[in-house]
C-alpha cells in the first residue's frame, strides 16, 4: 500500500496526516478512515496533505465525501497543503472554493476555532 493515514488530536481538532499516493487504488482506504473518524464523533477534521505525492479525481471525490459527512454533523474539513502540484489539482477543479486550504496545521486548527497548538 502506497498510502499512509494517521490521526491525532490537536487543539480539540482531529488532524489526519496523509502520506503517499491517493489514487484509484488507495482512495478506498482513505475513505474508510475518514468515515470511521466521523462515525467515532470526530467532526472537525484537518487533513494534512503535505506528504501526499499524488492526487487524482478519485482522491478528490473522497475528500468531498468527507466534507459532506462532517457538514452533516455541523463539522468542518480543512486542508493543509503548500505543494504546488497538489494545489494545482484543487485549483483546476474549482475545489479551492470548497475547501479552506492552509499552509500549516496550526493555522488550520486555529481557523476552525480550535485551541492554538
Amino acid at each position, binding site marked *: 500500500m502506497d498510502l499512509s493515514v494517521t490521526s491525532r488530536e490537536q487543539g480539540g481538532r482531529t488532524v489526519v496526516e496523509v502520506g503517499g499516493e491517493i*489514487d484509484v487504488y488507495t482512495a478506498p482506504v482513505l475513505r474508510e478512515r475518514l468515515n470511521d473518524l466521523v462515525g467515532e464523533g470526530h467532526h472537525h477534521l484537518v487533513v494534512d496533505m503535505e506528504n501526499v505525492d*499524488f492526487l487524482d*479525481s478519485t482522491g478528490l*471525490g473522497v475528500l468531498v465525501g468527507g466534507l459532506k459527512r462532517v457538514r452533516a454533523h455541523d463539522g468542518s474539513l480543512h486542508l493543509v497543503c503548500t505543494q504546488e502540484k497538489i494545489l494545482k*489539482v484543487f485549483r*483546476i477543479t474549482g475545489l479551492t472554493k470548497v475547501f479552506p486550504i492552509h499552509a500549516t496545521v496550526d493555522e488550520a486548527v486555529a481557523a476552525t476555532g480550535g485551541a492554538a497548538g
Partner: protein
Amino acid sequence: MSGVPPQAVPEHDGPDRAVELELPATPEHVRTARLVSVAVARRVGLDDQIVEEVRLAVGEACARHLARSPGLRRLRLELRESRPGRPGLHVLVLAVDPGAADVPVSADDLSLAVLQGLVPGLRVGPGRLELHWPA
C-alpha cells in the same frame, strides 16, 4: 557482450520509438502506467514540472477508463515523442474492448476537469483519451 555485432543494436533514433504497453485494467496497475509515463516523459526531455503533469494526467486517464467501463479487462498505453528530437509528448490511453457504452458522467465531472486542466491538447472519445504536450 563481445559476441554481439554492433549492427544488431537498434538505431538510437529509429523511425518509431513509441513505447507501447498493455496492462490489466485494475486500480493497482494505474501506478504502473504512471511510472512508465514518467520515464518516457523524462526520456523525451520534458521539464520536471511538465513530467509531473504527465504523471497526474496519465493516472487520471487510466482511472477514468476504470470508472467508466465496468468490466474492462485491459488498458493500452501508447507514448511517443510528438516530433523526434524536440521535447513534446503524445499519449494515447485506450480502454481495450470497453464493451458497453461509457457510463454517463455526473454533472460534476472531476475527472474531466483534472484532465482539461493538466493537458494542453486533450481529445476525449469513447474508450479513448488522447493527451498531447506540444514541443
